[in-house]
């Protein structure tokens, strides 16, 4: 996914001279295209995430679009106050891109896991939070993010993401995409873990359960309409994310349901537990270890449907 993001960024930057890429010495093998093509709009600050974010904000204050880019929680939590006070308070046109959302960098360990970012970034005023699930969505989301004026957190995957969308879709920030139709229950996911959801939905379908599958690619602003429609039409909602249970997609969906008085449905959140993920393993192994891979999702679908 990082490849498609960088390729798309390059295409957009060819047409939009406002776009600057500001790095903190991360991006090997991916950012060189931009650096070669637009050296005058490319800054590698060195390992300085706070400065990277401040510089990006300064560039944006002067009418540019600045992209900060790094891995895991480096471009978000290390420089959170710069994002809050500089980027968000000034509504600066800065796009914060992290590569390797969730536990993409599984065996690299806790320092390289990005598992609280959705919760934290969505709490910031003016911030839009986008979590694309596959390459098609990542490409479309990139265009949308650069069309939008203002701060965006783009939580990118890493590599080898599988296709989830198998039918054409229109991408709009804040408008969820229904990947699979169904009226027995709804599974709302964000990010590449949606592929696990899709496998589970297919397996459940073979057992006669038709689960609606929704990609909630924009966590903020969230698509209330899609959530409430799913609640009304299916009466059962499961959320799925590669993120701490606290404050992420599941919480955002629960907030909508609670705020709208939609409390008479069955609801379950699937996410990483509130722990530091210290077990050593690949992304997929960790998903399985923490029961957010396809077999457990299928179980949850069957369970919520009383099967």
């Amino acid at each position, binding site marked *: 996914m990082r490849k498609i993001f960088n390729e798309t960024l390059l295409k957009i930057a060819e047409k939009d001279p406002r776009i600057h890429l500001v790095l903190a010495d991360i991006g090997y093998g991916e950012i060189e295209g931009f650096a070669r093509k637009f050296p005058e709009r490319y800054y590698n600050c060195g390992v*300085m995430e706070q400065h990277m974010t401040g510089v990006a904000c300064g560039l944006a204050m002067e009418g540019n679009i600045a992209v900060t880019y790094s891995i895991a929680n480096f471009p978000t939590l290390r420089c959170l106050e710069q994002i809050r006070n500089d980027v968000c308070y000034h509504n600066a046109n800065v796009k914060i891109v992290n590569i390797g959302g969730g536990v993409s960098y599984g065996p690299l360990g806790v320092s390289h896991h990005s598992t609280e970012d959705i919760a934290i970034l969505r709490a910031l005023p003016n911030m839009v939070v986008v979590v694309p699930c596959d390459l098609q969505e990542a490409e479309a989301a990139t265009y949308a993010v650069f069309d939008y004026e203002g701060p965006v957190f783009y939580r990118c995957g890493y590599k080898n993401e599988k296709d989830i969308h198998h039918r054409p879709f229109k991408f709009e920030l804040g408008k969820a995409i229904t990947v699979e139709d169904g009226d027995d229950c709804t599974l709302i996911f964000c990010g590449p873990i949606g592929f696990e959801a899709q496998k589970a939905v297919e397996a459940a379908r073979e057992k006669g359960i038709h689960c609606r599958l929704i990609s909630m690619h924009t966590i903020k602003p969230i698509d209330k309409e899609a959530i409430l429609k799913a609640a009304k039409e299916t009466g059962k909602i499961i959320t799925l994310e590669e993120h701490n249970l606290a404050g992420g997609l599941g919480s955002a969906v629960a907030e909508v349901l609670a705020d709208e008085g939609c409390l008479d449905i069955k609801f379950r959140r699937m996410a990483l537990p509130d722990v530091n993920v210290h077990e050593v393993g690949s992304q997929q192994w960790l998903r399985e270890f923490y029961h957010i891979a396809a077999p457990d999702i299928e179980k949850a679908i069957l369970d919520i449907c009383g099967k």
Partner: protein
Amino acid sequence: MYENYKDLAKRIRKDCLHMVHVGQSGHIGSMLSAADMMAVLYGGGFVKVDPKNPKAPDRDRFILSKGHAGAVVYATLTELGFFPKEWMDTYYCDNGKLMGHISHYVPGVEYSTGSLGHGLNVCVGMALAAKEKGEKHKIYCMMSDGDCNEGSTWEAFLFAGQHHLENLIAIVDYNRIQALGFSKDICDLGDFASKVATFGWATKTVDGHDFMDLENTFKSLPLEAGKPTFIVANTIKGKGVSFLENTVASHYWHLTEEQKLEAYRELGVEE
């Protein structure tokens, strides 16, 4: 000219005292130490801004990184006509017009700060943008001792030298007192100019209360072609009010009516 600076600095100091008294708020020491520099920077036309066109693209950018001293900028901007003087009566008050830490919601304020270690990084971004486009305006950053404790500030020192940002001017209001005490006892910056010079900056140490020294320095910017400028302005916290001068307490002091009037008397200004 120097009489003009003196008068302007006196009015800025008076307005700062008025505001912190109205708001029953702190940071007066940090405002008073910067007042003379503000008088020269704005009164001398070194920071080129136009209240009739506050967002003019060719304006100089001035960011107060020591945002707690925001009132010293408010006092200066209202002198220039950016907003009505009556706004100062609402400083720090409910539904007031002027926030304690400097806010870009106030006309003429370029940028909001308050948490230290933010201003210089953003100035660097602005300086890069201007350099790219060949724009001639300057980017000024006024900082404090405490501001220069922050690691992010040193990140900016490193980067600006590397990128030869000669349109960037950082001025440290070096009053040598920070929140809990004297800087030398907390995090001694020592020979600060020399330290920053090793990062590739052109540096100069000045008397931050000497109008002639300040004017001559600002006239000679950039100090050196191809280098960002770093000015260490030796100042006195609370300058101009004897009971505040060079005290840690002046960072938090809430003035009583009597103390405000006493300060006015020392400055030689009327209520």
